[in-house]
């Protein structure tokens, strides 16, 4: 059926309005990061000063965020890939149970997870003060995503039969893991990795509870700058955050599409 022209015009208008509703605040915020004085408006002139200031003030935070994201990635890879493999090998009631348990952190609020961590390990001072505390929280929060991504691809390529094929040719379990399981799970591992890094860099709820003045990540720093700095600096901060997270999101989108295409 061919849509009526008026209907189409109406739909287009609604869509554009909705987009504008979402984009205008973002645009305003980005612009604020470049204006000399937000209250006087763009007429006060444009500058890169605020960006520079953000980088100077928060470079530690940015570095820590990246370090924690990479650390989280490392740990989720090390735990998640072998775990997904082990679960894919013998699908059973146990597998379903583990899948449920591992999904819990997604369902329960980050705050609750953080509280649980603080109650359990907050007493260990060195641990509580170190970035490893946040890293632990991020691992708990992101591991399910890695597991699910890898398990989905392992099921799609029927890794069990592939492994049996390798075993029949004389391959040991370790050889099977590195020659057959990992290469054929590459799509899921990459998708999971992008997801983990994106989530870790953007995570706020949990991190806000777990952070100390010396262990702050990007989103926590953002909240901090909104609370204690000029609006221009907070806006410039948003911009820096955008620049880091948007490429990851775009990669995730594009990649998700190619992985789905390959699976089909």
């Amino acid at each position, binding site marked *: 059926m061919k849509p009526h022209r008026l209907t189409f015009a109406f739909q287009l208008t609604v869509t554009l309005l909705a987009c504008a509703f979402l984009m205008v605040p973002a645009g305003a915020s980005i612009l604020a990061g470049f204006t000399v004085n937000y209250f006087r408006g763009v007429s006060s002139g444009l500058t890169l000063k605020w960006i520079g200031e953000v980088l100077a003030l928060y470079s530690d935070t940015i570095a820590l965020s990246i370090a924690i994201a990479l650390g989280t990635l490392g740990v989720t890879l090390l735990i998640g890939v072998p775990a997904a493999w082990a679960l894919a090998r013998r699908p059973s009631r146990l597998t379903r149970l583990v899948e449920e348990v591992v999904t819990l952190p997604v369902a329960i609020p980050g705050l609750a997870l953080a509280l649980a961590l603080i109650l359990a390990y907050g007493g260990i001072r060195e641990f509580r003060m170190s970035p490893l505390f946040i890293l632990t929280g991020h691992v708990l929060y992101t591991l399910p995503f890695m597991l699910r991504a890898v398990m989905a691809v392992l099921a799609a390529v*029927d890794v069990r039969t592939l492994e049996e094929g390798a*075993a*029949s040719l004389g391959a040991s379990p370790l050889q099977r893991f590195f020659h057959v399981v990992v290469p054929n799970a590459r799509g899921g591992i990459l998708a999971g990795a992008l997801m983990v890094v994106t989530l870790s860099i953007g995570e706020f709820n949990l991190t806000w509870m777990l952070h100390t003045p010396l262990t702050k990540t990007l989103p926590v720093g953002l909240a901090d700058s909104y609370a204690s700095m000029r609006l221009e600096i907070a806006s410039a901060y948003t911009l820096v955050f955008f620049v880091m997270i948007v490429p990851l999101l775009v990669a995730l989108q594009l990649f998700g599409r190619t992985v789905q295409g390959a699976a089909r």
Partner: protein
Amino acid sequence: MNRGAAITVASCGKTFADGTRALSPLDLDVRAGETLVLLGPSGCGKTTLLRLIAGLEAPDAGGHIRFDGADVTALPIEKRNVGMVFQSYALFPNMSVIDNVAYGLRVRGMAQAARRAQAAGVLEMMRIGALAQRRIDQLSGGQRQRVALARALAVEPRVILLDEPLTALDAALREHLRGEIDALLKRLAITAIYVTHDQAEALALGDRIVVMRNGAIAQVGTPRDVYFRPADDFVADFVGVTNRLTGTLKNGRFETAAGVVPLPQDLVPPAAPSGPGAVRLLFRPEAARLASPADTPLVFEVVQVEFQGARQKVTLKDPAGARILVEAPADGLLVPGAAVGLILDPARISLA
């Protein structure tokens, strides 16, 4: 290539974790170098038995698998030196055809150049040398089947196990590849165990056939044994069309409504036949020959004739109304209602 191993399966049963009893404890001897076909309907335990022999599953307590007399029950598949062709082929999508075929040599520590050369030789033998650099997803079903077989053979296993290797292919290709596999297995003189639910495949390929039913062995025998002397009704029906006549045994002859059938000396009557109608004579449509009613003591009435070109299928009934199906050359003109004599080949009848 090396000689195949003899395999002994001793009281191997299999009960899965969920309580499914896939195999009742059974014994089976596979001779060195023979092609043994496991035949049976879907779900009867063929794959399970094959996987026990392969080492992909462990038998229930008390079961043992021996290769050339050595107990391999505790050995995992990677230590048994068996080649396996999976129903889904299980080719590695992350490797080219030649790397798939060379994989078994790679994990045995052979250098790249040497293993590629050896794998190329196997591909040549399978007449798919031109596919060496292809990716797996660039192959047709028949090509994948050949690659899977080449990969399993490249490590010169003592035994090759094939699980319905042709089931995924279309009928014409299936028949063609069946011939190729048959020639290959005979030439290599390797011990082969071939699983199928297709009776034509089983009859064509097997030196011996194991007919399975509900996790147990119904009959073991040569294709001719199984076809012409089925051990029971199940085997008879599973392996082709079977005619049955009811009657009694008297003085070495079988007496039925349509007349009498002389029985050969070596035909074993079933245990304890009693009373009339207690014994049944089983035969295939091709084991009967049409004759003039004057030439034989066994006479039927023609019910229906189905012309098929070279042959015709003729449905007959005896005075008691029992129907049988026979095949005859298409030259003799038969009309429904006519009386026709039947001569049964004594070597191709059995009693049940």
